[in-house]
């Protein structure tokens, strides 16, 4: 019935006044996978998730989740999905346990099963010690894990994770990733929206890049990384006259042609053997007496992906440039 796809969207349209939040958006998510939806703020990620999770009506196109039409079978869809939003949608006054029991009863499990399921999930998401404390006192990572647990009460077929790690410190981020991997191991399909290429790369087996309400790429993480060229080494020199020498040094370790920027005195190039390249370049430049302002390795960012795919930078980067 759903041909092995947990989520399908065809030509989705959503307008807010003059603004087209979604403008012919297509998406196909295979069952049992993590699918990344990557894009900058305002690209339409959240709108897409809100439509697929039945929170918002679509203006055009068609979408199915678990083989059910989101517009016509909203209630059936709701019984098969979990949603974890940008804001942890749990009750901050209640304890972790009270939250899960309440959601369990609202999922119509009945009191006894709701209590048992809460205990089970608290254990599974490593929240047993904090179970009877108010959520207001939870750390960001704990709150997000509780949010995930609440989304998992009915063991949904499809889980929507809308920027699950935004605003979390690296450790909490790792905890959430761990939890997501465990869910997928159990057979849940995850649609993950994120602004971080790294996050999509770590979790997703396939990534759709969204820009201005449209899917502009759909590929594996490796495919996207090949597109932007992987890690890069970056050197900033102190004197303009040193730029050509730096280009020469970098070229020796680079996988491709180094690019240079005469105004920012910056030289950069793709590298594969990251650390070896870094030490080699640093040593050689020092030996040749080139004054180096900055040297480092840079992972490709969402911005790099965008630059390659669209020829323009993300709005965030554009704003930063305008401010500089």
């Amino acid at each position, binding site marked *: 019935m759903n041909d092995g796809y947990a989520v399908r969207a065809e030509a989705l349209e959503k307008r807010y006044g003059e603004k087209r939040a979604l403008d012919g958006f297509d998406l196909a998510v295979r069952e049992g996978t993590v699918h990344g939806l990557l894009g900058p703020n305002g690209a339409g990620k959240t709108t897409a998730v809100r439509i697929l999770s039945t*929170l918002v009506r679509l203006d055009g196109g068609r979408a199915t989740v678990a083989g059910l039409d989101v517009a016509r079978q909203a209630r059936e869809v709701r019984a098969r999905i979990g949603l974890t939003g940008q804001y*942890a949608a749990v009750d901050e006054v209640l304890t972790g346990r009270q939250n899960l029991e309440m*959601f369990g009863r*609202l*999922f119509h*499990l009945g009191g006894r099963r709701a209590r048992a399921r809460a205990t*089970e999930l608290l254990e599974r998401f490593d929240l047993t010690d904090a179970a009877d404390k108010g959520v207001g006192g939870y750390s960001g990572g704990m709150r997000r894990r509780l949010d995930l647990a609440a989304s998992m009460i*009915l*063991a949904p077929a499809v889980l929507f994770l809308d920027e699950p790690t935004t605003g979390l410190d690296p450790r909490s981020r790792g905890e959430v990733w761990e939890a997501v991997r465990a869910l997928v191991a159990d057979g849940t399909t995850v649609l993950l929206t994120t602004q971080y290429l790294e996050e999509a790369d770590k979790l997703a087996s396939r990534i759709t890049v969204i820009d201005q309400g449209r899917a502009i790429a759909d590929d594996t993480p490796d495919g996207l990384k090949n597109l932007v060229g992987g890690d890069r080494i970056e050197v900033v020199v102190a004197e303009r006259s040193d730029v050509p020498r730096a280009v020469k040094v970098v070229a020796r370790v680079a996988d491709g042609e180094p690019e240079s920027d005469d105004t920012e005195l910056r030289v950069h190039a793709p590298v594969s053997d990251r650390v070896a390249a870094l030490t080699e370049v640093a040593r050689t430049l020092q030996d040749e007496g080139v004054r180096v302002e900055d040297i480092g390795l840079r992972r490709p960012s969402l911005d790099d992906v965008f630059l390659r795919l669209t020829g323009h930078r993300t709005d965030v980067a554009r704003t930063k440039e305008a401010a500089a």
Partner: protein
Amino acid sequence: MSALDLTGPAAHGRTYWVLADCWNIVRRGLTHYRRQPVNIAWQLGFPILSVLLYGYVFGSAMKVPGGGDYQDFLMPGMFVMTMAFGFINTATVVVYDSTKGVIDRFRSMPMASSAVVAGRGVTDLVVACAELAIMMLTALAMGWRPDGGWGFLAAFGLLLWLRFALIWIGVWLGLLVPNPEAAGGLFAVAFPLTMISSIFVAPQLMPDWLGWVAAWNPISSTAAAARDLFGTPVGGGDSWVEQHALLMAGVWPLVLTAVFLPLAVRRFQRLSR
């Protein structure tokens, strides 16, 4: 993955689940008060403080037209004020739930979405009953002696009827204002609205135009009707609306509900846009 059977709910009709969902939302609201008892103390603090301030400090200096003790006149006003300020509590909870994403979570679940709003309303009415009971006990301790019997129950009912109408203003405002901080600002609106009424002072003691506004203030009708039913001084008044306080105490909340219930429902439905 789970030792539990998580397959579909037990077989029950749709009405059963609407009521069950509603009850679970009420349970949540009441658990909030149980976990933060200071909240209910805070909600009651202001009216009780007003009772003490106006009753003891100004009591002897305040007049009641047509005679009678000011404290007896004041107490039903205090009950009305507590009911009237209640809409701020409703709005605060609703704005908090909608901005934090709690309402979105409810809407993404296979529960009855009408239960989200209805549950809020029932919670507020239960809390209002508790508030009224505590305030009346305070008033009795201060020497307030109302008539008992049906009149007392009718007054209690009219007070709850006013609170019921204000739930919808609260829900509507809660979905309208952008953040919880803005909801705090509602107090600045509510305070003059309760002052320009018959709660503290009989309208006929005010300047003409102000007295007219105060007399037509919906909460004045509930105050006057409650005073009448409690057998405490009413404070007179010759205008039509003051002469028909009992009728208007029934009509005003009905009008408010007729206007704001559809507005609140429409706001709620607009969340899907």
